C-alpha cells in the first residue's frame, strides 16, 4: 500500500517525511497536481459497478485502490503548469484528481472538505471556544462604530486578516499589528476587519498535533523586542524554539478541536501570558513544522510519516453529511 503525497517539488518539509517513509520501506508516490496534465497523468473507469483508477508521475504508477494514505501538503493548483493553462482546465483537472481520490479508501491528512472548513478563522475561534480553549476577545465587523466601541472596552488591540492571507496584487504582507487607541476606524466599513485584544505575551507557542500526538514548542518573547512588532512570523528574534510540556487542559481542548474539525494534523498557535495561560490564536491545518523540528529536534516529521504509514481505519464524518463515513 502506497502513501500519496500532494505537494510542490521545492517542499523540503515534505522531504523530511519522505526520508522517514523511505527508511521504513513504505512505498511513496509524490506529485504536484500543477503538473496534471503533463508530468502527472491519471485514468479511472467506472464499469460493472466498480471503480479502477491509476495515477502516474515520474515513471511511477499507482492504483488508487492501493493507496493507504493521502497527505495534502502544499499542492499547486491543478493544471497550473499545463501547456495551455486556463481556469476551466484547472477545474477539470482538479475535479478529476480529487474526485477520484475521494472515492479511495485511503486515510487523509487532511481531507479536503475538512481542510476547507478549517481554514476559516472565525470558525476556528468558534470551535476553540467550544473546546474550552481560551480565546482573546475578538471582533469581526464592517461597522466602524462597533470597532470604536470595542476599542473603548479593549484599548490594547491588534488587527489581522480575517482569512490569514496576504494581498498579491501588488504583493503585500499584513502581519498582526497593534492598533493605537486613538485610531480612526472609518475604514472598517471598506472590508471585514478582525480586531482582537492583545495578549501581553511572554512566549509564543506552536503546538503541532499529528493524530493523537502533540509536540509543543515555546519561543520566549525577546525582552528588548520592539513592542509594536508582535507577529512572530515577521519579528526578527534570536530566541530559539524549545520543547515544552502541553498542559492537560490544553491537551484536552486540542484533542476535542481535532476531533470536531476532523483533522489528522493541525499546527496550533498560542500566546502565553504572564500567568502561563495559553491563549488560542489559530490552527493552521497545513502549518509548517520544519522550522520547529530543526530548532527543537522534536520528531514531528517522523510522527507524520508514522501516521501516513499506519493501516487505514474508518472514522465517522460530519463534514458534509452527519453520520456518513469519510475514509
Amino acid at each position, binding site marked *: 500500500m502506497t502513501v500519496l503525497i500532494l505537494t510542490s517539488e521545492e517542499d*523540503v518539509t515534505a*522531504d523530511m517525511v*519522505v526520508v522517514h517513509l523511505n527508511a521504513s520501506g513504505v512505498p511513496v508516490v509524490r506529485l504536484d497536481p500543477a503538473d496534471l496534465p503533463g508530468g502527472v497523468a491519471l485514468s479511472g473507469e467506472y464499469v460493472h459497478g466498480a471503480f479502477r483508477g491509476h495515477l502516474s508521475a515520474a*515513471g511511477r504508477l499507482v492504483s488508487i485502490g492501493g493507496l493507504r494514505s493521502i497527505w495534502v501538503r502544499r499542492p499547486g493548483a491543478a493544471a497550473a503548469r499545463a501547456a495551455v493553462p486556463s481556469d476551466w482546465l484547472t477545474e477539470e483537472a482538479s475535479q478529476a484528481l480529487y474526485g477520484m481520490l475521494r472515492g479511495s479508501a485511503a486515510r487523509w491528512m487532511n481531507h479536503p472538505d475538512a481542510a476547507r472548513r478549517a481554514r476559516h478563522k472565525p470558525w476556528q475561534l468558534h470551535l476553540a471556544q467550544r473546546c474550552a480553549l481560551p480565546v482573546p476577545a475578538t471582533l469581526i465587523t464592517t461597522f466602524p462604530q462597533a470597532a470604536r466601541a470595542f476599542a473603548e472596552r479593549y484599548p490594547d488591540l491588534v488587527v489581522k486578516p480575517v482569512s*490569514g492571507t496576504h494581498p498579491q496584487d501588488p504583493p503585500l*504582507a499584513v502581519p498582526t499589528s497593534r492598533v493605537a487607541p486613538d485610531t480612526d476606524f472609518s475604514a472598517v466599513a471598506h*472590508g*471585514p476587519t478582525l480586531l482582537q485584544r492583545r495578549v501581553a505575551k511572554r512566549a509564543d507557542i506552536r503546538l503541532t498535533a499529528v493524530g493523537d500526538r502533540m509536540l509543543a514548542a515555546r519561543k520566549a518573547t525577546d525582552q528588548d523586542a520592539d513592542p509594536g512588532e508582535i507577529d512572530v512570523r515577521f519579528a526578527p528574534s534570536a530566541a530559539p524554539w524549545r520543547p515544552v510540556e502541553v498542559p492537560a487542559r490544553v491537551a484536552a481542548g486540542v484533542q476535542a478541536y481535532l476531533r470536531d474539525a476532523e483533522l489528522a494534523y493541525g499546527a496550533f498557535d498560542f500566546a502565553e501570558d504572564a500567568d502561563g495561560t495559553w491563549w488560542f490564536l489559530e490552527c493552521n491545518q497545513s502549518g*509548517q513544522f520544519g522550522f520547529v523540528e530543526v530548532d527543537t529536534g522534536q520528531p514531528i516529521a517522523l510522527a507524520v510519516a508514522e501516521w501516513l504509514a499506519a493501516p487505514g481505519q474508518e472514522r465517522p464524518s460530519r463534514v458534509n453529511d452527519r453520520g456518513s463515513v469519510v475514509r
Partner: protein
Amino acid sequence: MQPFALNYARPAAELEATTPYAYDSGLQLNVLRDGRIAARDHGLMRELGTTTSTAGSKTHFDD
C-alpha cells in the same frame, strides 16, 4: 476605500531566494549539488528559512 487592515500592510519580503538544491524526481527528494539529501541538513534549512511559517505564503493559506 482601502480596507482597514491594509493600513498595516508592508511590502512582501522576497522569499524565493535561490536554493542550493534541486528536486530529483527519481528520489522524490531535493538534493544538494554534492548529492546529499537537503532535508537531512538541518543547519542549512534553518539558514535558508524554507521550512519557516512564512515560507510558501504566496500560494497557501496555512502558515
